[in-house]
């Protein structure tokens, strides 16, 4: 059997294993080691298992060890920890509170404030799920208390949570950068405008929805003085400073994204301790509670690296690029095809799984079209974000439903998300049609 056929069969085996609920890491890792063994065992035409075992072990170790033994990837545990520390240090609540007091009297204002709060949280944490989970605890109960329609109270947070992947820092951008060997700093900067565009789009959805059905978001009777508004804005300074530290530092060339992550984590922890919201002896247990997530993410990535080695061995990517060349597909048609593939995958798979599974095959094809990898990364992350709120497996929806402990049905959240999904498609079309939205800031970078 030729290696390309083994490559196709391996992909099919992974799909079958994933469909029967084998964890992503096990499925891709297991198929990769077996297939690599088969390729080497029959490489010379005769069965030579001893040599194949040695090569398979060596490839498996090098691929997984090198992925973990990586300076740039230390950003992921740092940014995941930062999200948790920011919540404990009260920074997250302040972001939301600052937006809430300014917008509370506007119909749908608390929903808009929640979206703005999600945007703010996204600017200091790199995970959409963490964003939906944290903001779901803070914003949704408040909206339900104010008699907001549960569809709006939940969907605004579930959709807002997706900003965590697009607004830098972003775990997805980091993984994309590592797998495509693109600049993570440039990817972070590229995500700013699309993130703001998405945020404004979501706010617009709330405005239009509330204008059409005012009963879904009764205006609050809470009196908020100008003094309270100004004080709330001033109190949110740590979030502003953290964002400036991360983005300003990277943009200004003062430090790398990894250094920004470390400085931001140290600052947030120090602030939490100074405010007596975090005790020094609580720091390690607090960070330890975020470690399992980091471990699970990395194990998927490490197994994916072994799978990448398999794809390279089989020559599957070159085969696909050749087929694409023969098909003579126009670039716009290719992008539409990519969007459809990712939207469908997003309905069933988690974003990191999709990314590590598809990038090894996708990137050579993208490069064959001479497309900008930074722009493509933004498009991919936006597509993966959409997957977080599409049924049947919208992770943000399930996380939010879990946080609300059954107070709102999952079906209700999905029903509320329809309008936000339509806006996502509009934003996606803009990002595809106008690459400058993504490439403008990175090109201005020092």
């Amino acid at each position, binding site marked *: 059997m030729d290696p390309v056929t083994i490559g196709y069969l391996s992909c099919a085996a992974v799909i079958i*294993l*994933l*469909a*029967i*609920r*084998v*964890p*992503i*890491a*096990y499925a891709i*890792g*297991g198929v990769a*080691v077996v297939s690599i063994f088969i390729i080497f065992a029959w490489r010379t035409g005769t069965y030579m298992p001893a040599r194949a075992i040695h090569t*398979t*072990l060596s490839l*498996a*170790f090098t691929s*997984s*060890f090198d992925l*973990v*033994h*990586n*300076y740039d*990837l*230390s950003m992921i*545990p*740092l940014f995941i920890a930062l*999200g*948790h520390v920011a919540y404990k240090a009260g920074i997250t609540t302040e972001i939301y509170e600052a937006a809430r007091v300014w917008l509370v009297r506007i119909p749908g204002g608390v929903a808009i404030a929640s979206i703005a709060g999600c945007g703010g949280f996204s600017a200091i944490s790199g*995970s959409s799920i*963490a964003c939906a*989970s944290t903001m779901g605890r803070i914003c949704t109960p408040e909206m339900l208390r104010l008699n907001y329609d549960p569809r709006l109270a939940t969907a605004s947070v579930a959709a807002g949570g997706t900003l965590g992947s697009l607004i830098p820092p972003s775990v997805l951008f980091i993984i994309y950068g590592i797998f495509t060997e693109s600049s993570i700093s440039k990817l972070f900067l590229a995500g700013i405008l699309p993130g703001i565009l998405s945020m404004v789009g979501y706010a617009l959805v709330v405005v239009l929805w509330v204008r059409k059905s005012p009963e879904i978001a009764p205006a609050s009777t809470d009196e908020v003085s100008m003094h309270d508004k100004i004080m709330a804005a001033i109190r949110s300074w740590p979030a502003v400073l953290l964002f400036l530290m991360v983005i300003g530092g990277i943009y200004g060339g003062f*430090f790398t994204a*990894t*250094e920004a*992550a*470390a*400085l931001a*984590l*140290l600052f947030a922890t120090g602030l939490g301790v100074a405010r007596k919201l975090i005790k020094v002896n609580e*720091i*390690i*247990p*607090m*960070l*330890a*509670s*975020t*470690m*399992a*997530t*980091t*471990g*699970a993410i*990395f194990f998927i990535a490490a*197994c994916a690296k072994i799978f990448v080695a398999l794809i390279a061995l089989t020559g599957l990517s070159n085969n696909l690029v050749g087929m694409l060349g023969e098909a003579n597909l126009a670039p716009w048609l290719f992008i539409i095809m990519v969007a459809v593939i990712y939207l469908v995958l997003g309905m*069933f798979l988690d974003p*990191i799984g999709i990314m590590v599974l598809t990038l090894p095959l996708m990137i050579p094809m993208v490069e064959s079209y001479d497309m900008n990898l930074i722009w493509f990364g933004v498009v991919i992350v936006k597509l993966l974000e959409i997957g977080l709120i599409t049924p049947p497996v919208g992770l943000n929806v399930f*996380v939010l439903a*879990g946080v609300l402990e059954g107070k709102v049905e999952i079906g209700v959240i999905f029903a509320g998300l329809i309008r936000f999904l339509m806006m996502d498609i509009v934003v996606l079309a803009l990002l595809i049609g106008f690459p400058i939205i993504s490439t403008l800031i990175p090109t201005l970078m020092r």
Partner: protein
Amino acid sequence: MNKFLGTALDSIAAVSVVLLCLLIVSNVISRQFLDSGVPDSTLLVKELMIPTILFPLASATANRAHVAIDFFAQYFPARVNFWVAVFSGLVGLLVAAVLLVAGWQELVENFTSGAKYASDFDLPKWPSRAVFVLAIIFFVLRLGQVLWQDLTAAVTGIPAPIPPSNSDF
């Protein structure tokens, strides 16, 4: 004992995060004010990444925190899902076993040859390999424990206990 071990491994990972964070910050400060970074800081951060990432694998496994797709499996009969869980564990064990043997070979090779990084302090390569092997051993043990629970569930028809998640992050 299990809980203690899980907490201990996660805590070591957390300490590693703190150390790598401090190391990176020290490097920035040193570069800014002393015009030179902390020697070998990049390498040390890489070395700290091994316990940071791999030690929590055991608790991720015990908490069944590895991401899987439930959509199709929810339509399978319960009995089938029990055996799928066993099969998943076996696939996981295959991956873990490969990493363990591969890691062990690397550790022995690096230890006996005295291989060193081309760095300021000529740091040896074997400690990170040793941590890698240790972490994978804990991972294998946890995976074996989960597999045993799933196998028992498949044989008896009584679902395996679902561990409480300790974090949404």
